[in-house]
Each structure stands twice: as structure tokens, then as C-alpha cells.
């Protein structure tokens, strides 16, 4: 009977986890959704940024599409671990841009972009940790039993 008690505990834990995961999931979806919209609808700031990176317009559409895809993945619980990995990758890319040609302040925004970037990066790291057992390549190593 110990087994069934453990099973019960595990299912409770999973339910609790799934609920908590919605906080970072919605956060990422909201911010990245806005960013994707900005890029795909050619807002002036985004065009400016990608001109600086010499990736205008192909790079802007590419990143915008990737961001939209990430939002889509993040909102499906089964795929949100994959979404989190993609979000981390995109944010690392953004960080490289800010460390390089872009600088920390974009068109005198007082660092708004970098704050958003930080929020998404931290949220996706938290989400990746919550859903670590379904991460690509390393998920298996976190699965202690078939219950998790």
C-alpha cells in the first residue's frame, strides 16, 4: 500500500506543478507574443534594431516567426518544455545583440528591452526547471520513475 500512497503523492505533485507552470508560461507568452507582433508588423523600433544588426528585413521576420512559434509551443503543456528551450535560445541571441552592436539602451528607452529580456529569460529558466523531465536531450536524466 506504500506504493499507492506514493503514487497519490506523485499525482498531486504533478497537478500542483502544472498549475504553477502557468505563471511563467503566460508571462513568456505575453511578452514574446508582443515582441513577435512588433517584428512581424515592421514596427519602427524593430526595424531600427535589425538595421543595426544588419539583418533587416530577413532576420527580423525569421526571429519574429521563431518567437511566434515559441508562444505557440509554450501554451501547450505537453510541448512547453520545448518552448522554454527555444525561448532561452532566442533570449541568449538577444543578449548577444545587446552586448554587441545594439548597446543596453535602444533609442533612449531606459533599458526597457533589457528588462523584458531578463524577465523572459528568468521565466523560461524557471519553466524549464519545472518541466525538466520533458526537456530535449536531458529530460530523461530527470525522470526518476514513470510516474513523473
Amino acid at each position, binding site marked *: 500500500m506504500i506504493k499507492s500512497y506514493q503514487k497519490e503523492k506523485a499525482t498531486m505533485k504533478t497537478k500542483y506543478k502544472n498549475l504553477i507552470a502557468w505563471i511563467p508560461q503566460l508571462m513568456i507568452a505575453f511578452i514574446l507574443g508582443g515582441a513577435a507582433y512588433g517584428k512581424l508588423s515592421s514596427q519602427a523600433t524593430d526595424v531600427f534594431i535589425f538595421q543595426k544588426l544588419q539583418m533587416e528585413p530577413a532576420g527580423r521576420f525569421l526571429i519574429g516567426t521563431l518567437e511566434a512559434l515559441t508562444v505557440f509551443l509554450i501554451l501547450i503543456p505537453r510541448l512547453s518544455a520545448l518552448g522554454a528551450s527555444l525561448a532561452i535560445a532566442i533570449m*541568449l541571441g538577444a543578449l548577444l*545583440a545587446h552586448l554587441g552592436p545594439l548597446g543596453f539602451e535602444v533609442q533612449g528607452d531606459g533599458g526597457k528591452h533589457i528588462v523584458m529580456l531578463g524577465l523572459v529569460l528568468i521565466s523560461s529558466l524557471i519553466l524549464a526547471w519545472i518541466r525538466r523531465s520533458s526537456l530535449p536531450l*536531458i529530460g530523461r*536524466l530527470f525522470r526518476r520513475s514513470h510516474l513523473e
Partner: protein
Amino acid sequence: MDSQLTVNLGKIAKFTNASLPILTLSFLVAGYQYSFYFHFLTVAFFLLTLINFFYRHVQSTHSLLTNFGLIAQGRYLIESIGPELRQYLFTNDVEEEPFNRTERSEVYRKAKGLDATSAFGSQLQFDGSEYKLRHSLYPLDKEALQKFNLHFGEERSLKTGFTLTRPFLISAMSYGALGNHAVRALARGAKKTGLPMNTGEGGYPKYHLMENCDLIFQMGTAKFGVRHEDGSLDPHKLENLSKLPQVKMIEIKLSQGAKPGKGGLLPKEKITEEISQLRGVPMGQDVVSPPHHLECTDAESTVKFIARVQEISGLPVGIKLCFGRESEFFHLVEKMKQLSIHPDYISIDGAEGGTGAAPKSFMDDLGVPLFQALPKVHKILQDLGLRNKLKLLAAGKLINAGSQLMALSLGAQACYTARGFMLALGCIQAMQCNKNTCPVGITTHNSHLQKGLGIENKSERVKNYILGLEDDHYELLSALGKRTFSDLKESDLLFPL
């Protein structure tokens, strides 16, 4: 001497581990110097470097990943498609188990109604380790053969007796082990040809009944469908079930060849409302199938339980068991004789029998194989004078007429096969019956996977297989120079050296 061209996987792994951070740095520089697009690679390789670091220095569950890093994933990746590669490309036609490709394709061809001849000669190696049938110098014409007939219940002069007109039956496959499409396709094929089908121990046979074929209701050790909450027999439920016009016989399963002496556990997650109703078990808690019937603890109680089921159902009642200890079986039959109670048939399930799920050691290491068990059972029944009081059935890997005739030569009067019929349904031996992922939709409840199993279409294949198998039986019988199946003797068989 070592050849000059060798692949040293260890060195390749070391090289990979060293290159990952170097490549990351190179792409970082290139991203700032040449084109920002290089940073796609910077990010990707940075993450791979992190993962590689994690494999080698953080995790400790997989030695290969610790020692060789990312490249060791190749092993797991390729290994995971090993079963498919072996079956598609690398295994020869006669080396797979439980059924090799020649055996499977024989069933497929029958099921599709195609020409079943092979070319150039047997692929088997006749090294004295095989059973073979001895043909006659004077084969009989087909017109001289007698039609097969087996009357169950005649020994007790039952009015409700059942007559079997082919030397084989569809063995126990429950709804639960199989999905509803597969059950219905089998049952419809059975109905088309008038062959009876065993329901398996899945409780009330809702889907089997839909197609109106003749049924043998199997009562497992948990008595699903006819049980009280404590697992004992509910006589009213059994009586009501026996009154169904489709139910022709009852079979008490004492043990199963694939897992003799083992019960099972139906986890509560699998108990849907439907399963709970059909099996007569409560929802929300695990249900344990005990290793034996509550009522059967020794020879006497077992024999009395058989009598009780015979009385309640009013139908022919058989028992199914896997032969284990000879002395125990002897005592059981002795007790039957002493109390003048005997089942209407005994079905011997060989250790090579199939199952949806069983521990490996139970499948591999327990129970007597069919061809060794049958002659012993036949002899014990003969010695105690009970051989003509009951019928003897055989089960266990008998998917073609040849092996079924061998079982008949060893004393059986009819044969059960389940996996033969699964192959007829289109089983590709993916060996995933316990995972709910059966790629051809037979042993799964996933509606997406069951979509490919058209009930009408597959029931035709079941019908073709039944007719083809019957045809083979008579062909072989005439080659053996026997007029009836009951003329087959042990002497018609060549035994392994």
C-alpha cells in the same frame, strides 16, 4: 596487426568534447566580426556545450554520458530503433521469436487469400531437433476424409452441449488486452465462419457479443464479470451470463502458459467507467488478480468448484491450465475420478503461450512446453480411465495446421490459437502489447491507432485465415493417410533426437 583504418569512438568523443567550446567561441567572434547571423550557431553550440558539461560533470546515472559526453547519445538513439532495423533489414527469415518471418507471412498470405506456396525448398535446418509429421506412402483422397466433429458435453449428456466443427478455436483475448476494433473484427470473422471464440478474462464480453458469434466465456482468477467484491464467484451473475444465447461454454482459467502461477494487477488508472462496469470492479482502487481462484486451494476444492460452475451455468465447463508438477496434476485427476466429477474439457496451455504482459522470468523460466506436457496429460488421463470422460485441448504457438496436427497427434482433440488470429488481423509483431502503443491498433485503446483497423475489412482476413487453416488441415490429413483427426497417434510424429 591493427589495420591503419580504425574508428576509435573514444577518440572521436574526446575530439567532440574539445571542439564544442572552441566552435562556440569561433562562432561568437564570427557573429560580431562578419555577420550577426553566426550567432544562431553561437547560441546553439553554447547550449550544446552546456548540455555536454552537464552530461560529463553533473549527472551520474549514465556512465556512458559521463565518460564520453554528447556523442554517447548516438548509442541510445540508434539503439532505440534497433528492433525496427533488425526486423526490416538484418534478421533472416527464420530467426525471430516468437514467430519468424516465414511463419508470419504464411498467416498473412492465408489471411489475404493469396497463394501460400513457397519456393526452392525449406529454410529450416533439419538437424534432429524438430518435431515432424510422418506422412503415409498411401495418401487418401480428399473425398475419403471424414468431417471434423467434436461434441462438448456429450459425456454428461448435456442438452446444452456444443459441437465444434473445426479442429481449432480462437483462443482467449479479452477486451482490455485488445481494443474494441480488434475484438469486434475477430468476433465478426468468427461469426462469418461459425467458429467459436474465447472471451478471455476481461469480464462481461460486451464487444464480443456485438457480433453474435459463439462464445466461450473465460473466468480468470479474479472472475471479472462474475465476481463478488471480495473476488469470490457471484452465482447470479454467472447464471445470467450463461443464459445468453451466444455463450456456449464456460472456461475456468487455473493458470496461463505465459505466466503460470501468477495473478496480476489492474491499476486504478486503467479502470475507466466502462472497464469498471464490464469487469465488476470498483473505480478508484487497484484490483488484484490473485494467483489462484479463492475457491481452489487443493485438488478437492478445485474439483468441487468445477462441479459448482457446471451446476450454475448448465453449460459445458472446461479448465485451462499450464502443466507444471506432474504429481499435482495426477492428484487432481485422481480426485476427479474419486468424486465422479470431471470438467467437460481440459485445455493445456504450453509455456510458450502468449500474453499481453508478464514478467520475463515467468515467460521464459516457468511451465512445461506444450509438446512435452501433452503426452503426459494424455497418459495420466488414460491411466486413470478418464480419457474418454473429457476432451483435451491444446494451446501455445499453434498458428499453422502443421503444428496443430502435431498437437492432435500427441493427444489433443482441438487447438486454441490467439496469436495466429492476431497475425491474421495484421499484427506485425512489434511486441508492444503492454504499452497501449500497438502500431496496428490491435492491443491498444488509442482511437487514433485503432483507426487503421477497419472492422469489416479485417474480419474478412480472419475469415480467410480460418478457411485457409481448415483447408490445410484436410490436405495434411490426407497426406498422413488418416480418415479422421482422431486417428492421429503419437507414432505419426517424428520426435527430436
